């Protein structure tokens, strides 16, 4: 029996496929192509400049600083956002009265725009904001802590914001995985007299190990792609002396305006892609090895 005409699947897939080609595949190729040119945002002719953008990048202090910031960002986010959301998921896993409320509430920072929470945190971390006022009232500090004006504290503040905003998202990812951990293993361990901590380490963690690797990859890549948190916390300026910039902030700067440079921005984009591949490859290999 004939159930469909030959072109039906194509009629259904072609819009999505067209979008993919125009807005993902072609821009990928074009990024690489543009990175060898001196194209400008204002249009007009441009020349092929070979590897010049890439050699310029090697000598660019801003790029080196951005890479350092990215590595620090990733190194702190990776353990925190791999472990804390798992603990949170275990906390909200049990069906207690009102648990749906807590799950929803913990997810709220995820649905808010990074601009909204960035401005919220700017106010919280202000010299005269809530956190500094509380810290002084409790005599933890005598002078306000310069969360938003010190080169390193700005970075730490942005990292805290990223971790805070990501908790609920990865909690949900873990919650879906916890449903697949075998209940009988928990019960058997409990009968053997294993306590909560022990059961968490010997039953829960091995049960969600695959998800932990997935989360660690997602977290690392997201940390390398950071933009809004640093942009908003520093009012778009990148902190004192522009030291608190990420690679994406540099890309954004070169992507528009009179001083824009699409060629250089594209070379930075290629660098960003290569940098995000590193944790993906390393973590995927670690995962394969531990599976054997």
């Amino acid at each position, binding site marked *: 029996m004939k159930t469909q005409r030959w072109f039906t699947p194509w009629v*259904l897939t072609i819009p999505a496929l067209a979008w993919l080609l125009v807005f*993902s595949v*072609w821009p990928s190729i074009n990024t690489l192509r543009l990175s060898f040119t001196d194209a400008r945002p204002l249009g007009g002719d441009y020349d092929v400049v070979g590897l010049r953008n890439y050699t310029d990048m090697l000598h660019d202090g801003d790029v080196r600083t951005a890479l350092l910031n990215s590595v620090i960002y990733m190194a702190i986010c990776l353990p925190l956002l791999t472990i804390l959301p798992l603990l949170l998921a275990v906390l909200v896993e049990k069906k207690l009265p009102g648990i749906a409320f807590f799950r929803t509430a913990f997810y709220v920072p995820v649905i808010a725009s990074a601009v909204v929470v960035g401005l919220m945190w700017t106010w919280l971390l202000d010299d005269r904001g809530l956190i500094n006022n509380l810290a002084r009232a409790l005599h933890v500090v005598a002078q306000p802590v310069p969360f938003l004006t010190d080169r390193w504290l700005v970075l730490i503040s942005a990292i805290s914001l990223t971790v805070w905003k990501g908790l609920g998202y990865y909690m949900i990812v873990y919650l879906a995985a916890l449903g697949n951990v075998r209940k009988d293993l928990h019960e058997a361990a409990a009968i053997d007299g294993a306590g909560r901590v022990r059961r968490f380490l010997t039953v829960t963690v091995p049960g969600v190990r695959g998800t932990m690797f997935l989360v660690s990859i997602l977290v690392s890549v997201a940390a390398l792609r950071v933009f809004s948190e640093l942009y908003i916390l520093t009012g778009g300026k990148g902190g004192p002396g522009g030291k608190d910039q990420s690679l994406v902030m540099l890309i954004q700067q070169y992507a528009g305006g009179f001083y824009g440079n699409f060629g250089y921005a594209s070379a930075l984009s290629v660098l960003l892609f290569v940098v995000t591949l590193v944790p993906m490859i390393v973590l995927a290999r670690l995962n394969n090895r531990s599976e054997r």
Partner: protein
Amino acid sequence: MKTLRYFLLAFVLIITVGPFVWQLSTSLKGAGEDIYTQTPSFIPHQPTLNNYAKVADAIPVWRYIGNSLVVAALTVGGNIVFATMAGYAIARLKFRGRSVVLGLFLSTLVLPGEVTIVSQYVTVRDFGLADTLLGVALPGMVAALNVLLMYNAFRALPQEIDEAAIVDGATVPQRLLRVSLPAVRGTLAVVAIFAFIQAWDDFLWPLIVLTSPEQYTLTVGLQYLSGTFTQDQRLIAAGTMIAFIPIAILFSALQRYFFKGVEEGGVKG
């Protein structure tokens, strides 16, 4: 043990929701109330909506809300229609090149959006859509992830429901709309919610595409407000609440479908 659990839940609640409450409280405090006091108060002494009115004086906030809604509507509509169509075809119909198409969608997932943002802007500009809302919405109207979510959902349905419909002489569009689509409502809700949130919250892409202040979406407008017009935290707080409250209402209204969709495997990708 139960008490300890609730204690921990309350502790996390303060950390995650507390900042929003503080921001709401600040936005309701009048000009006469000291917001910088050493002994912070969460309850405004004389609650006022004045700050919200002042935001509308400083920036065309209604226009920005409208702009954000246009972008969000296009994004949600595009993803619901096109991701459903493609996801259904790849999951439920047999055709040559099916695995190649699936592989193509999968392979774009490893590519962070920021990597192609510059050349995406070049493409949008070449279409003549720089500094337009359509230019902001267009690239996000079909996300590969949503195609894969719909594919996963359709694939999980039993083969028999199609066979029964085929015996009844149902065509492909009839099978898709009347038989399969009602069965994947949960995933469709997840796709719609995520598409809306993504469009409403996005900042970097509209910041690059839009140059005229009257075209700004709400997030870009907010940044503009805090950077250019005011240092008054009460006003900025009111502005952030204007951007946050609609999405909070939408999410709490739909959270049941969202968490159900997640349990159906929505976030596994």
